[in-house]
């Protein structure tokens, strides 16, 4: 089930929170939705979930228009909002029973037990939501989002404010869910996007600045790649022959070994390997240091801000 957003514009008080945004989340893919604070991520997600209605453009969730068939769209979407709105005075099971009731889930008790199992709420299931830790409250939020087994999951910064262990647990859960569902996942934590997503849409000031796979984006920004090589013994001659390899821009020595910056068009690792063998030099370590998502993000959002 896909989510297709085209020409989406949302105006609040003459300010364009989302500006002519188009992207697609394909079936069975985890789409990372990245952008600085106030970029329009939450507004876009709320538009997909029929919380707001857009000024222009359309959103199709499995071919259903959010303006024409909001009920059908909402039946097929599981949404975890940014601040995880749950009723703090309700018991975990009571709350899930309430949500199951809204979705008219047959045999809801069985499904609630399943969802409690999936989200790891077992130990906390008899507690009042307000007494749970933030991590467990977030699991309750996730549980309500998946209780009706939706085909599309929209998660708005699901790991914000959690500690590292909780973040890892929630990430694993999302990875697991992403195997069979279309997931749109927003975050401003870059490592998270790197760890979870197949594809990234980056927005800034309500506009799309990038929409690609992570690898392509990294290469686009980098242009050049840095290859790190550590030889068993080092000598100054190595610099000369490394420098002479095709596509090499600079060769520098850091405390550990050589850092060779070369054009991303060539992978120079096999060539280095051959040369080193011919010269009887032993390679201890060799790896490419790709531009990480942090660089991509900074680069693209900065470019956009400059425009």
């Amino acid at each position: 089930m896909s989510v297709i957003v085209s020409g989406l514009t949302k105006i609040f008080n003459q300010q364009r929170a989302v500006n002519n945004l188009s992207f697609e989340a394909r079936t069975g893919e985890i789409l990372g939705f990245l952008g600085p604070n106030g970029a329009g991520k939450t507004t876009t997600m709320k538009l997909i979930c029929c919380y707001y209605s857009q000024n222009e453009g359309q959103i199709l969730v499995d071919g259903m228009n959010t303006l024409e068939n909001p009920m059908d769209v909402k039946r097929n979407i599981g949404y975890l909002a940014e601040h995880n709105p749950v009723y703090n005075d309700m018991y975990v099971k009571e709350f899930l029973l309430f949500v199951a009731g809204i979705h008219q889930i047959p045999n809801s008790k069985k499904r609630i037990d399943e969802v409690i199992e999936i989200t790891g709420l077992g130990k906390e299931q008899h507690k009042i939501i307000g007494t749970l830790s933030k991590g467990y409250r977030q699991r309750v939020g996730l549980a309500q989002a998946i209780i009706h087994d939706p085909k599309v999951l929209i998660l708005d910064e699901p790991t914000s404010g959690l500690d590292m262990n909780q973040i890892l647990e929630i990430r694993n859960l999302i990875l697991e869910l992403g195997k069979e569902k279309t997931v749109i996942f927003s975050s401003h934590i870059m490592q998270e996007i790197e760890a979870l997503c197949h594809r990234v849409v980056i927005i800034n000031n309500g506009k799309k600045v990038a929409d690609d796979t992570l690898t392509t984006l990294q290469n686009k920004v980098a242009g050049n790649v840095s290859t790190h090589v550590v030889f068993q013994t080092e000598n100054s001659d190595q610099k000369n022959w490394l420098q002479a390899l095709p596509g090499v821009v600079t060769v520098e020595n850091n405390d550990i070994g050589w850092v060779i910056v070369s054009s991303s068009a060539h992978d120079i690792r096999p060539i280095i390997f051959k040369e080193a063998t011919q010269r009887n030099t032993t390679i201890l370590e060799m790896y490419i240091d790709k531009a990480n998502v942090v660089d991509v993000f900074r680069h693209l959002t900065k470019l956009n801000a400059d425009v």
Partner: protein
Amino acid sequence: MYSIFKKELHSFFSSPIGYLVMAVFITSIGLFMWVFSSTSVLEYNFATMDQLFSIAPLVFLFLIPAVTMSSFAEENSRGTIELLYTKPLSTFEIILGKYFAAVVLVIFSLLPTVIYFFSIYELGLPKGNIDFGAVIGSYIGLFFLASAFVSIGLFSSALSGNQIIAFILAAFMCFMVHWSFFYISAMPVFRGKLDLFIQKLGINYHYTNISQGLIETKDIVYFLSVIGLFLFATTLKLDRRS
């Protein structure tokens, strides 16, 4: 809608709210009917329940806004309204769920007063000397009045994210819709011209009519219109999210 109704009703009775509303209602009405000498039925020498039906609207004026003030204001301030809006529920279903839950709470608070009816029935001389029609009519009138107050309360709660503002606004609007038209109609400028028409705009006029045991379609239609109007206004307000 049923899920919302169940949740709301449960939240009334899993917290002190529901019991407090019932206790305050029955106690305040009880005091006026049996204890305070100026209004006590024991001093009045007539077997009637007029005291109940004249004081109840006043008690509801404060009690119902207190019940409804949290209904949307709290959801708005806690952000949980977002959860409801993104579930397969229409705005009107959410409103109706909350509306019926509050109406049921009001009916629960009215139920114990039946004891007062039987007490007066027994105390009458001769026994059972009480105007049945007027009592039943008054209960029906009170039910409609309370239902109208609930719809006004929900509307005020939707207007604000602050419960205190919602309460004050609801109490004021209930007062205006119930009593103010009667006083406006008494102003010299309307006398003999528009006074009856203005009176008919207020709840008081129709409530008094029904209380006499005279249940007419026009009064029922009036109450249903007021309820419909405020529920519709609530829907409009809640649907305007940006």
